[in-house]
């Protein structure tokens, strides 16, 4: 039995507001092994918050609490901030949606990757440089040495996302959380990016949490799927058996997907049941 990479029990995230507390995450529990877990849901379902909560990237006034949160057996909840910084990037990492915004516009691409390397691994600048060039090559970027000298505004969206992947994987984390990694890209570019991601994750035996609103994408890419609605997990299922989902919300989502083969006059609309909020 492979030891669990990540264990989360009863994670809650609450935001205070003028109308009382708003729960972004409600009693979320799951565990993750050496597998690919997809997290799907609409905007506001809490899926992005989940990723950030795990990485302890939430800022006040958000308040996070959980009964249990462990990464490879290590307790994440009581870890002091300084040590958590060392965990981030080294054991678990995160990639974001749009490289236009998630890369520092003032630093060259290369220096940002080198910075990530040097934050966690020993070795001089030359070694870090080599590591950066190598990982750029492994995300299928041609002429990595030239790209190293570019600034984020000088690279295209697809290349920027690869740079982001390179930057976040250069210190070899065991878990990667990908928050909508393809949502800002053209459809054609999405495919090549996913291929790159697929290869790297398989090669390194990493665990992946893929957060997306794109159900078909998650269904093909991941092993298991969590469906989120209003801050709760409403369904957990194996990706290949998504059509056997039980929860009406999941079934509604799947049914609402446009299908080129199936001719319909009207696309079915998802009917929300307030009962789902209380499950």
């Amino acid at each position: 039995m492979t030891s669990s990479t990540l264990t989360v029990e009863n994670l809650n995230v609450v935001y205070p507001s003028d109308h009382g507390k708003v729960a972004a995450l409600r009693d979320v529990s799951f565990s993750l092994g050496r597998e690919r877990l997809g997290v799907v849901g609409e905007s506001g379902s809490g899926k992005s918050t989940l990723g950030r909560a795990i990485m302890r990237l939430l800022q006040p006034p958000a308040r996070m609490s959980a009964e249990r949160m462990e990464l490879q057996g290590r307790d994440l909840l009581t870890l002091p901030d300084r040590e958590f910084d060392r965990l981030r990037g080294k054991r678990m990492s995160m990639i974001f949606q749009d490289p236009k915004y998630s890369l520092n516009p003032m630093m060259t691409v290369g220096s940002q990757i080198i910075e990530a390397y040097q934050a966690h691994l020993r070795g001089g600048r030359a070694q870090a440089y080599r590591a950066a060039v190598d990982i750029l090559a492994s995300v299928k970027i041609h002429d990595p040495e030239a790209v190293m000298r570019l600034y984020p505004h000088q690279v295209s969206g697809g290349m920027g996302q690869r740079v982001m992947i390179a930057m976040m994987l250069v210190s070899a984390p065991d878990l990667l959380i990908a928050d909508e990694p393809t949502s800002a890209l053209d459809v054609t570019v999405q495919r090549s990016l996913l291929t790159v991601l697929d290869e790297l994750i398989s090669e390194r035996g990493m665990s992946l949490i893929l957060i997306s609103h794109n159900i078909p994408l998650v269904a093909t890419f991941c092993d298991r799927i969590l469906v989120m609605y209003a801050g709760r997990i409403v369904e957990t299922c194996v990706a290949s058996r998504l059509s056997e989902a039980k929860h009406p919300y999941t079934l509604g989502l799947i049914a609402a997907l446009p299908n080129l083969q199936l001719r319909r006059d009207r696309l079915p609309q998802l009917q929300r049941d307030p009962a789902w909020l209380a499950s």
Partner: protein
Amino acid sequence: MALPGERIGRRVTSAKFRAFLLGFLRLLFTLIITFLGLTAVTFVIGRVIPIDPVLAIVGDRATEDVYARVRAELGLDLPLWAQYANYLRHLIAGDFGTSVITTRPVLSDLLEVLPATAELATISLLIGVLLGTPMGVAAAVYRGRWPDHLIRIFALIGYSVPVFWLGLVGLLVFYARLGWVAGPGRLDIGFEDLVPTVTGIITIDGLLAGNVAVFMNALRHLILPASILGYQAMAQIARMTRSFMLSQLHQEYVMAARAKGLSQWRVVWVHAFGNILVPFITVIALTYGLLLEGAVLTETVFAWPGLGLYMKNSLFNADLNAVLGGAILIGAIFIALNLLSDLVYPLVDPRARIG
């Protein structure tokens, strides 16, 4: 035969150079226009508004031809634009007119008093930057918590209080009541003219001459006005820095930097602060300008023999040339500060560079 990459490289370089040249020329053009505007305004104030300058020279009992002769001498019979051209020509040659009071060329008067003002303004700016920057950053990082509230109130007081009044209160408390600092003026009478004037900045001159006593005395005189002006600068810089940092800290690249596992210190100072350098430099240039401008008030309160005091005294002695000369000098320094910061931007922000 050149390889394809080489040829393209050269074309790109010359395009880059052309863009840079254009940018530089545009800057120069703006500079010239602004300077022309500045001098036009002082010209208008100087020639067109006041009462007849001829009368001021010949008196009101002069005869017609004396009047006409002096008028021609002063070039006042020429059309206005020709007078302006003359005025400009003199200015560029360094002729700011003669001071009615000191009977010396205004420019030499101005250059003599400038170091005192520069000393005060520069030290105050240093205090402002060294203290105000970390305060602004801390207030942004700890937003909503007590460091933020404390710093905001401290800064709020700093830019709500009239600096000349604060100077008076400072003298009252720290000089008259507590005796911690020396009184008005740059040096006690006994220390005057003890060291040769090299830079015009007494503290430096004292050190250069190896005279520690003079240095210490000058320092005791400098500390109060510099602290008060420094407080003003600090308030302004802290306030603006906080605002800039706040707009950076909730950007996604900051979150990504944290996700990389970088220390809080590095994320705040290298990433976030690095991205505000452009507006930050603008604020510094602006603050220096404000300090120079406030020199008139501070120097009056502290009897500091600098540019400001010179202008005020000239004003009350109806020495128009001196007042306008001082205005042009300060205006020119303002323009130079703006130019300097424009030149620095491309150095710190790759997006400001061409290409």
